[in-house]
């Protein structure tokens, strides 16, 4: 069975022990079963069990193992080892406080996500079966509902780095449009009111880092543009 060695440079920081963060050079032996970056990280963890990172589903559904891989945010479980230039530099998602190593505190990210009321608001009495949609109405939600909230996009956005407390960020805005576009939701105007602010929506400068990094191939910029379209239609 052939093995190969892979070189890593990993951001390490344990606030209980380290005065400041440092980059650790480390290598790991991989075999032909190891195809994704997460496989290599699991082996690294076996070698050095102080290394901290999140992971769960290992197939791009839970969004836990988002990190900065060779300078670009992505999911370790979806990143092919073969596509990576060595040494592979791994850092935590930028713009969020580091808890330890590659493990970040996502409180601010979820605070913004919750601020857009990510649930259906419908004051009609619940029907006996379900709230129906036409195929066209359902199709409006394609490219929106697939978001797994991994935070790759939001933490790649300079506007979020600068105003994390006020700017909703691409992931939150994608979800905001997911409910604005939903034919069953009755709070469209209130949702638009909530975003018509110089910070919450309009801090988006069309930098498009969000589109570049989304591991699910979604386009938060398009959703942001559609929110602006909806506001313009409402205003004129």
């Amino acid at each position: 069975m052939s093995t190969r060695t892979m070189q890593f440079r990993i951001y390490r920081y344990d606030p209980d022990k380290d005065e400041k963060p440092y980059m650790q050079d480390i290598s790991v032996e991989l075999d032909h079963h190891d195809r994704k970056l997460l496989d290599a990280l699991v082996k690294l963890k076996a070698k050095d069990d102080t290394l901290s990172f999140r992971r769960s589903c290992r197939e791009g559904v839970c969004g836990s193992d988002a990190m900065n891989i060779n300078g670009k945010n992505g999911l370790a479980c979806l990143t092919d080892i073969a596509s990576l230039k060595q040494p592979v530099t791994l850092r935590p998602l930028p713009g969020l406080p580091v808890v330890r190593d590659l493990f970040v505190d996502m409180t601010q990210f979820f605070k913004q996500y919750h601020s857009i009321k990510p649930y259906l608001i419908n004051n009609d009495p619940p029907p006996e079966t379900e709230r129906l949609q036409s195929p066209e109405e359902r199709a409006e939600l394609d490219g929106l509902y697939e978001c797994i909230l991994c935070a790759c996009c939001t933490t790649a956005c300079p506007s979020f780095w600068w105003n994390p407390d006020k700017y909703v960020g691409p992931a939150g805005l994608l979800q905001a449009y997911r409910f604005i576009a939903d034919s069953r939701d009755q709070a469209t105007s209130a949702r638009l009111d909530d975003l018509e602010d110089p910070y919450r929506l309009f801090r988006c400068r069309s930098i498009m880092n969000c589109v570049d990094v989304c591991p699910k191939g979604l386009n938060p910029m398009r959703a942001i543009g559609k929110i602006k379209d909806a506001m313009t239609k409402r205003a004129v």
Partner: protein
Amino acid sequence: MVSKIVVGAHYGLKDWLLQRFTAAYMAAFSLVFAALLASRWPLDQQAWRALMEGGVMRFFAFIFILCLMVHAWVGVRDTWMDYVRPTGLTLAMHVLTALALTGYAGWALSILWRL
């Protein structure tokens, strides 16, 4: 209310639209103006005066100056919002910027219309 983040000023859309419309107008005006200059090349004082004296040119140049000031207002104000955090200081910078831009607009028009 020490730590509560307050958002919800309802001028995001208006400013965003203004910035885009003024950019589009300035781009269009610049292209037409460049073409007019090229058609009168080589440009001497007489040709320049003839170009700028016309009522139509004054009308569109006036709108251009206004667009430039509105565009600059949104951009500079956003810069203060990003980089100057104390509310009082931010407000002071806004007022100074608005006054400066108003002055610049008047100054630019007095130069153009004096011709």
